């Protein structure tokens, strides 16, 4: 399919971004790197700091370099991110003044400690309660966000302005709404944009200024409206999969490349670097308390321990998307040594099996040695789904006759 024209504008904006960061820093601006997704970006932005979402994937060589500072039983995402800092070439890593971590994933938290010790980076932690669903958990996080903000104020050299915070909240809400609109195209029979492109657009927001990101998202939305009905991009009987599981960080195209090669259409995800960057998120009031509530109440990462399976929002999100986006099956992607998601494999499989939804777990890293195996396993799963679709179609036809 043809690439929407606006995507080229995203590429151009990203090409210019490192230069902009260098210039901004020369003019005294501070760049705040953000790991994990429970840090309210609105606060960083409203304080005049530049937020960058950090973390990289897909490069086995860099992941190997990380082992110099951490063991090989860390997930490849953590190892590669350390490798990126070690290599010292990535413009976003190089131009980060302060690293912040919302401590949800223990490995990622430790990674930040390693970056502090070996690379002398200033770090700031936002603690996130595991008992996030209890009143005392919510109260703790509200206080934690206040404390975190006080530290950011020191870095920014100024106090938080409620009006500026409100403006930042509105800006990020606009970004989430526009991203959601783009993402929703994936539910259609004929989407003018692929999942891989949607993810690229989301990841662009990790680096671009939110103002620029929003303007490009709006532009893309306008363009998609014009091409939505005119270009049919895939056969109606193609396999529609949802991707669930571990982070698929910028640069990690391993699985999606295999899927594209095999003609699989990804119609949804619940990845923290994908759908969960914008979904299930409402800031009820533009204050620190409002932000704390919204971020804590978002669709949780599997690293957040929630005892009751029946009311687990993460599972609800998976099933809702399977229904809304009419996914034929779930591809559950786990990175090696990513415990939070690997521990949930059996549960996810059993729940999906009970609803007769095909489930395939792919446990992998950034190396190329299992590409053939992934290819074969996905192909086999596709065959199963195709046969099942054919049988359903046949049964419906018979019924109609």
């Amino acid at each position, binding site marked *: 399919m043809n690439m929407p024209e606006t995507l080229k504008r995203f590429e151009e904006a990203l090409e210019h971004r490192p230069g902009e960061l260098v210039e901004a820093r020369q003019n005294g601006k501070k760049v705040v790197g953000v790991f994990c997704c429970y840090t309210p970006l609105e606060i960083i932005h409203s304080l005049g700091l530049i937020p960058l979402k950090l973390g990289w994937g897909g490069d086995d060589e860099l992941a190997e370099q990380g082992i110099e500072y*951490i*063991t090989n039983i860390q997930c490849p995402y953590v190892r590669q991110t350390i490798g990126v800092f070690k290599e010292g070439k990535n413009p976003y890593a190089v131009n980060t003044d302060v690293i912040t971590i919302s401590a949800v994933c223990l490995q990622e*938290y430790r990674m930040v400690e390693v970056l502090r010790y070996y690379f002398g980076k200033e770090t700031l*932690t936002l*603690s996130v309660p595991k008992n996030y669903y209890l009143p005392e958990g919510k*109260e*703790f996080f509200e206080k*934690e966000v206040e404390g975190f903000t006080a530290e950011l104020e020191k870095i920014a050299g100024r106090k938080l302005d409620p009006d500026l915070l409100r403006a930042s909240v509105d800006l990020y809400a606009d970004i989430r709404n526009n991203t959601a609109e783009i993402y929703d195209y994936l539910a259609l029979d004929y989407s003018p944009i692929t999942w891989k492109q949607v993810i690229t657009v989301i990841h662009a927001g990790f680096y671009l200024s939110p103002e620029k990101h929003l303007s490009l998202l709006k532009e893309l939305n306008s363009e998609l409206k014009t091409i939505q009905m005119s270009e049919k991009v895939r056969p109606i009987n193609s396999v529609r999969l949802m991707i669930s599981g571990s982070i698929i960080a910028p640069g990690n195209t391993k699985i999606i490349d295999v899927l594209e090669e095999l003609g699989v259409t990804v119609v949804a995800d619940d990845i923290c670097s994908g759908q969960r960057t914008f979904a299930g998120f409402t800031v009820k009031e533009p204050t620190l308390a409002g932000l704390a509530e919204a971020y804590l109440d978002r669709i949780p990462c599997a690293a957040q321990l929630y*005892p009751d399976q029946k009311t687990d929002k993460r599972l609800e999100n998976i099933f809702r998307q399977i229904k809304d986006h009419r996914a034929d099956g779930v591809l559950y992607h786990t990175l090696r040594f990513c415990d939070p998601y690997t521990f949930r494999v059996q549960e996810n499989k059993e729940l999906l099996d009970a609803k007769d939804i095909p489930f395939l777990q792919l446990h992998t890293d950034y190396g190329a040695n299992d590409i053939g195996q992934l290819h074969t396993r996905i192909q086999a799963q596709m065959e199963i789904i195709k046969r099942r679709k054919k049988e359903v179609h046949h049964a419906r036809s018979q019924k109609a006759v």
Partner: protein
Amino acid sequence: MPDHKKQYKDKVLTKAYEDFVNENKEYLEKARNIFLKEKGLTFRDGTYLSPEYIWDWIFVKDAPEKYPNIFIGFQGYDLESPSVVKFIYLYYSFYDRLIAASDNGVLIVNRKETIPDMFYALGSIPIRGGAGAALRHQSLSVVPDNFEACGAGSAWAWKDNRIPFGAQVVPTGVHCYDTPNNALAVHRAGKVDIPIFYLDNPIGSGDAEWAIDYRVKTLRRAAEEIAKLNGATVDDERLRREIIIGNKVRKAVWRIYEVQAESDQPPFTAHEFETIIHAGHNWAGEPEAFQEVLEGIAVEAKERQSHKVHGTVNHKNPVRIFVGGACTHFRPLIGHTSGAVPVGVEWFLVPSHGSLNEEGDPFRALVEGLPLKSLTVPLEEHADWIVDRIKESRAEGFIYGYKWGCNFASSAALVISDVVKKKTGIPTLIMETDFIAKQANESGGGLTRVEAFIEILKQNKRLKGGVPEKRHIKKPNYNSAHVVVE
């Protein structure tokens, strides 16, 4: 109820018992004569066990029949120390007493790294899941080997109903991810329908007032839930009394460490030392009896020390090793034949580092005395805690261990070893071991690496000559009213 006896009978090693008894007839007879002159043990419910009963349980009746594999490590115990014999009873009979208590309606709680005080105050018995040494000795840990998490054993033993847990109270964010997840997986899979409570210690939250408040509220909530399950009430006064007993236990554990660390010829063998201080995690189901036994061991060890009697089979001038890391030990490797002796084990010592506040809100006292504190602070501070112990114990080598699959402890390995090297100048070794593949620690590659490391340390010692100069041992903040050894 499962047939607990049948489960461990499958894996026993009866030969270990026969070998030990046959090879040590005279020694055992001498030790027995010493022991029978002692008083026995009194339990919390008033039960008195005579020395004859205790000796027979270990050497004649129960242990040889049920747990003969424990005799593999018996050469490391000084059986002429009566308190050590009592300790052996408390330690290895824990499982039997646990099952009996459960049959009598006592709630057994899988507690992981929380402090035991609260659970005893609520009339329940806590087990440190995944690390219950007595359980491991009885080969009860059942772990999956098909995914990349450490074998946090007892969650899986619990899943298979081998330990009659009635509740899980699992701290989160302290340092371990695998146990909370194991617990959740088992709970949500509905394998056993018992409640789970997470005691949250948000990582990186430090000692901020709001963080302390949150932990206190979380702990109190869990106590109330446990109380409901156990038909008990949350009684602050009773908890304070339990904290006082706990403080005595913690002080006794630390005293045993001090005796080992300050001695030119450490009196405990690796097996004895590590097993005793490790038991400081669970208190063997009987806090008062356990306290009394540990205090006795400290006194008897001090006597051994004053007579320059070193551990039963230690070398005359062993190299001194400090062990860091989580959920790991090296007693099978730093054995009595290796010429090395552990002078401290971080994982076993941290829970006993200092007293809890005995006044005011007891839940706050429990929170502020959080065990494994060294693992929750920033890495550099954690490393400094180890550096302090290394210096005061005059360790000549440092081994940092972690379990395969333990992302959190493993991720600290390089930083901590680097800090130790920089600040102490001693050689360091990072060892990855495994709950599952026991042979990985105890033979082959693991053994070779530790032996080579010990050889380096011996060589260094020969070059430097003699025992390292004595250092002042920093006293943690203990209640001075709790006299252990004067």
